[in-house]
């Protein structure tokens, strides 16, 4: 079994030629990159990938705004006092709640009580007045 092919048909000259070729063609060992260099390179690649990757747009949540009744009345005492803001009790602040609201007059859906907040010149004192809207309408008429 060992000699199924016979002896190797190479001469000493063949071996010498192979050695010569190996020594002539060997490449110097590639310089190994330092760990710091690899980390820096990886960071650059990740950052670049994050920058070029398109982000999916977050859909704007559909919301149904409750109608709010906002009335602005001049300050009852002096002109230096801040304006009085009136809004229904269960609504968000007007600036945020009206951000996505459809244009047009705001009509109250339910006769909820009117909440009137009066900010005094003292920032620590605020007057809150809650009035029944339905009753007050009847009184006016």
């Amino acid at each position, binding site marked *: 079994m060992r000699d*199924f092919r016979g002896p190797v048909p190479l001469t000493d000259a063949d071996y010498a030629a192979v050695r010569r070729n190996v020594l002539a063609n060997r490449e110097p060992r590639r310089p190994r990159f330092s760990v710091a260099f690899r980390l820096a390179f990886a960071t650059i690649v990740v950052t670049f990938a994050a920058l070029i990757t398109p982000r999916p747009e977050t859909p704007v949540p559909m919301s149904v705004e409750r109608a709010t009744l906002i009335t602005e009345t001049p300050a009852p005492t002096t002109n230096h006092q801040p304006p009085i803001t009136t809004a229904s009790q269960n609504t968000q602040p007007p600036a945020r709640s009206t951000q996505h609201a459809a244009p047009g007059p705001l009509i109250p859906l339910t006769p909820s009580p009117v909440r009137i907040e009066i900010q005094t010149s003292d920032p620590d004192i605020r007057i809150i007045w809650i009035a029944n809207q339905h009753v007050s309408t009847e009184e006016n008429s």
Partner: protein
Amino acid sequence: MTAEALVREDEEATDERLLLAHIRAAKGGDQRAFEGIMLATERRVALLAWRILGDAEEVKEALQETFLRLFRHLHRYDESQDFFGWLFRIAVNVCRDLDRRRRRRRIFAPLEDALGLSGKSIPADDALARRDDVALLRRAIDALPPKEKLAIVLRDVEELSTDEVAAILGSRPATVRVQISKARAKLRQWMEKWR
């Protein structure tokens, strides 16, 4: 133990120590030491390549590529490993690549097809080969699938252990045993058919 055996053992130990010294020096960039490694190992590598490939030109190519890869990867060699086992692994991979390339170039008739041939269609050179068991065996081994061929060459021709063959081929010993068993059965069938 005879004096001759003792002298031989002593020489082998000296050769191993010399080879290890060459390896250490070559790792440090000593070109002469690397040449010393080639001188100490080239015949064994060439014999292995010859048994796998069976073509003198390809053996030279395999020898050169094996030493080039050895030069590139010598720094990875762990001295606790058997150097020849590690080198044979490189050589077998090189031979495998060459064999694959050759198989792409040529169209080989698989062994199973050859076994199915009738006696009437035997070509003249096969009729000659039938008279020569060695030639028959060579032809049969060359016709084996690559994995079985490598396994049988390393196990039965190079007479390495199954574990060593598995380490060289990067397979499990159980897989190697199966491959050898299949290869032997095919060779037996082939020899019986053509004798």
